[in-house]
């Protein structure tokens, strides 16, 4: 069968899965007075449509920031504005100032879901397909299989089409950035990534690798005017893009400051709710949230993040190849997720994207990580009533990546890149079959996640510990993520990539 038909089939299946998930409930459905993220997005359409630009981020009589105030950068606001124009055409009640608060109807839900599908088709899906065709090794069938598995990653589908968000826009733009850099179109890549950054500030998790990669490339071009000029062009692209995005807010110095204040709410504390990172997990044993002062918390968070981010970034600076770039993206974003301030459980998607990009090289570990990332969001998904799609998409994803990408067969020690582990165990336990250990750990971990998912749904927690199950889910995921950050750092820092795959890197 021809390639185009295989690709269309995969895309259609991906779209069907997405739309089928969208039949289910969304965040905050039928839960006044605050509802959830779905109402937040609707409210932003209302605010951006009815109010002038200079009021969007300010607390005014018409714009109560306590009720889902805008806390994403301007590009999200512009996107909401465009959606609002369409909404107004279909049904003005959906965006009426004040009166539309808490508006819920079947047709409105269809409209909102359709906006997600539209941007997905426009931005994310083409990026995934292009990535797989240009940067994946293997036969065209292998490439299509990889694209298919990436498209069926449950975490993104469940959050975007279930809970309701537009992560496919920011992640898609970031992916276009990676594509641009991979193809050698640095200016295009920088432009795309800057747009991603201006859509969601969480993309900052990815910014350090982008910076190090580009800087490393410029340095590799030699400390000549060519290198400097290249660096200059990139910086100008970034600055001009920022300026264009923030233009309406540059007239008054108070504006950008207020926007930044909304984007980075340092007043909100180390963490909120249950999230699978260090601080929340540590809090189970030591109540660091109350024990340490705000400044100490900030300092600790900053220090640890820097500690985990530095080796990876320095390595990338010294060796700016695509493979290093992808691994640095994983390591940096995972470090930020684990140690940074005010991390939300959905931020794991920022780590999931680069892990999807190493699917083809290390399918087993990638599958393991992606399933863990979906599992880590279980409490959120259960709150939104997404149990059925969670179970079906996770099982389908597990089965497909194992079957189509032969994840379990491609798991020799070399393929799993266990160089350092082998070196460590060589001395005392030379006969250890690391590959089999990894596989057993994989199945055991999946069994644990399945069991915990089951108990979270069917059993009632004891009265003294009402949050038992979300905490257990967070801690289990955290332990996994800790293991993954060590593994991925090991892969990036220890092993050179196999020669075969280097032909496509810059």
């Amino acid at each position: 069968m021809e390639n185009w038909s295989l690709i269309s089939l995969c895309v259609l299946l991906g779209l069907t899965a997405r739309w089928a998930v969208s039949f289910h409930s969304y965040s905050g459905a039928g839960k006044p007075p605050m509802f959830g993220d779905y109402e937040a997005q609707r409210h932003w359409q209302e605010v951006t449509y009815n109010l002038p630009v200079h009021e969007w981020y300010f607390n005014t009589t018409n714009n109560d920031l306590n009720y889902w105030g805008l806390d994403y950068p301007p590009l999200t606001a512009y996107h909401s504005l465009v959606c609002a124009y369409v909404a107004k055409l279909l049904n003005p009640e959906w965006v009426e100032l004040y009166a539309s608060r808490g508006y819920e109807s079947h047709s409105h839900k269809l409209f909102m879901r359709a906006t997600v599908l539209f941007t997905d088709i426009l931005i994310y899906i083409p990026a995934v397909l292009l990535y797989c065709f240009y940067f994946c090794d293997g036969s065209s069938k292998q490439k299509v299989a990889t694209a298919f598995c990436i498209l069926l990653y449950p975490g993104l589908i469940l959050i975007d089409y279930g809970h309701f968000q537009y992560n496919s826009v920011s992640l898609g733009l970031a992916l276009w950035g990676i594509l641009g850099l991979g193809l050698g179109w640095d200016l295009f890549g920088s432009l795309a990534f800057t747009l991603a950054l201006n859509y969601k500030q969480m993309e900052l998790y990815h910014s350090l690798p982008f910076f190090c990669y580009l800087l490393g490339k410029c340095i590799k071009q030699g400390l000549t005017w060519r290198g400097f000029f290249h660096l200059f062009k990139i910086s100008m692209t970034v600055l001009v893009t920022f300026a264009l995005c923030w233009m309406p807010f540059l007239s008054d110095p108070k504006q950008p400051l207020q926007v930044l204040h909304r984007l980075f709410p340092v007043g909100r504390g180390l963490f909120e709710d249950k999230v699978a990172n260090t601080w929340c997990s540590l809090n189970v044993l030591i109540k660091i949230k109350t024990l340490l002062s705000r400044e100490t918390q900030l300092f600790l968070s900053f220090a640890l993040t820097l500690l985990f981010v530095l080796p990876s970034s320095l390595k990338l600076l010294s060796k700016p190849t695509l493979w290093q770039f992808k691994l640095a993206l994983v390591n940096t974003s995972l470090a930020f997720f684990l140690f940074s301030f005010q991390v939300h459980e959905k931020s794991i998607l920022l780590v999931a994207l680069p892990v999807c990009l190493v699917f083809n090289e290390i399918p087993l570990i990638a599958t393991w990580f992606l399933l863990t990332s979906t599992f880590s969001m279980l409490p959120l998904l259960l709150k939104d009533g997404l149990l059925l799609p969670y179970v079906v998409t996770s099982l389908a994803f597990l089965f497909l990546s194992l079957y189509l990408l032969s994840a379990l067969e491609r798991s020799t020690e070399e393929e799993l890149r266990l160089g350092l582990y082998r070196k460590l165990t060589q001395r005392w336990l030379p006969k250890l079959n690391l590959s089999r250990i990894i596989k057993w750990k994989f199945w055991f971990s999946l069994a644990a996640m399945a069991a915990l998912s089951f108990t979270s749904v069917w059993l009632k927690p004891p009265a003294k510990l009402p949050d038992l199950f979300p905490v257990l889910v967070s801690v289990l995921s955290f332990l996994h993520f800790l293991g993954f950050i060590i593994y991925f750092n090991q892969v990036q820092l220890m092993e050179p990539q196999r020669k075969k795959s280097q032909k496509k890197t810059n």
Partner: protein
Amino acid sequence: MSATSHLLKVVIQTVMAAPMTNDQSWFYALALGVSFLKCLLINAYHSTDFEVHRNWLALTHSLPVSQWYYEATSEWTLDYPPLFAWFEYGLSHIACFFDKEMLVVPNLNYASPATVLFQRLSVIVADVVFFYAVKECCKCLREDKGKDLLGKPSFILTVLLLWNFGLLIVDHIHFQYNGFLFGVLLLSIARHCQNRHFEGAFLFSVLLNLKHNCIRFIDKSRSSLFIKGQLPQVLSRLFPFKRGLCHAYWAPNIWALYNIADKAFSILGVKFRLLDINKLPKASMTGGLVQEFQHSVLPSVSPLATLVCTLLSILPALFKIWHRPNGARGFLRCLVICALGSFMFGWHVHEKAILMAILPLSLLAVDSRKDAGIFLMLSVTSHYSLFPLLFTTQELPIKIFLMLLFTIFSLASLKTLFRKGGALLNPLEVTYLLGLIPLELICEFVYPLTVWQKTFPFLPLMLTSVYCALGVTYAFIRLYISLLTCSDTTKKTKMQ
């Protein structure tokens, strides 16, 4: 090796990552994949057929057998044969673990989440019969060793059957148990192809006791009916001749064309003052579940007339087969023609009945070029004709995606299979099929925004019906011609 032990072997091999020595794993992958898709569609729209089956669960569970065909609290009385009623009875015992309330007869339109989950899962699990039947049918095909997997006839057939668009949307969205029933039909066919005729006949009689509209196949096997002194009541429920010539949405058969011709003549007649508008019987075409049909200009059609037409349409095929049997392929071709014939000329035909022709035709399609061409024409047209079954906006993207999925797959794979010998479809056929795109755009996107939506809401349905009827009729004629003109190809027959 039995299916369960093979499946267990596949699972164990997957867990241990041992290399796959047996290359049948793709079958289970496809079956599992489609089951996942069906699970995702659990919360999609379901039609009144959902309540129909819930009611049958309730009445078979709560009432004694003697009352099953007399119970009439709900408007959805039991109108399937007894074996299906026993099937519902069996299901009802599992239903009590999900939600006891669904088994209470007066709980009309009861659809709690647990009820929906149970009913949907029962259809998905019952499809195992269908999976088994498809596996058996694949054994009847000639295999080309060394061909790449995606080009193998058995692979293509498996996808065409397991992922059939019509079955997916009728069973797993609209809600019915066709997968299970067609599984029995296909198994019966497979047994005949494998020369296990007794099993084939037995399976066929089982099928008749499950769904009586398979009675159109009755000349192929003997049948037996459960007789419990209730035959007249059962028969009256099974064959409700009080219903009209057509369903509220006209199935794309001959009568749709007949109706439109009648309408056209009456309009023209009134316009040219050949007919008096007051003397014409008023034909209503709006809404309602089922209605009688009276024609204005052309003679009205009675149930007897449709029976006669059906019999006349299938007699030449039967005669040809009797006279010159062509082995399994000839038998299949005749089967498809009988199914199509009764679809074309039958009384109160549902558009879903076209599946009865498409599924067996898939077996022929992977075997011969001509049949592949006819299959493409028929499947695309009839799948499109099923669109009005899912009229909700929410399901619109699903039906378009799945339709495209199936169409692209069947076109691409059959083209690759028969790449030697030119195109499968001639330009006229391609134009006709492409015409479905503007038709869909007009009916579902443009028309609802016009003023006529309120005054003539049935117009898109009528258009769909008539346009598809043309395609189905064309396929029927081509199929007939191929049956009547295929001379002694018994020696070349590739099936066992």
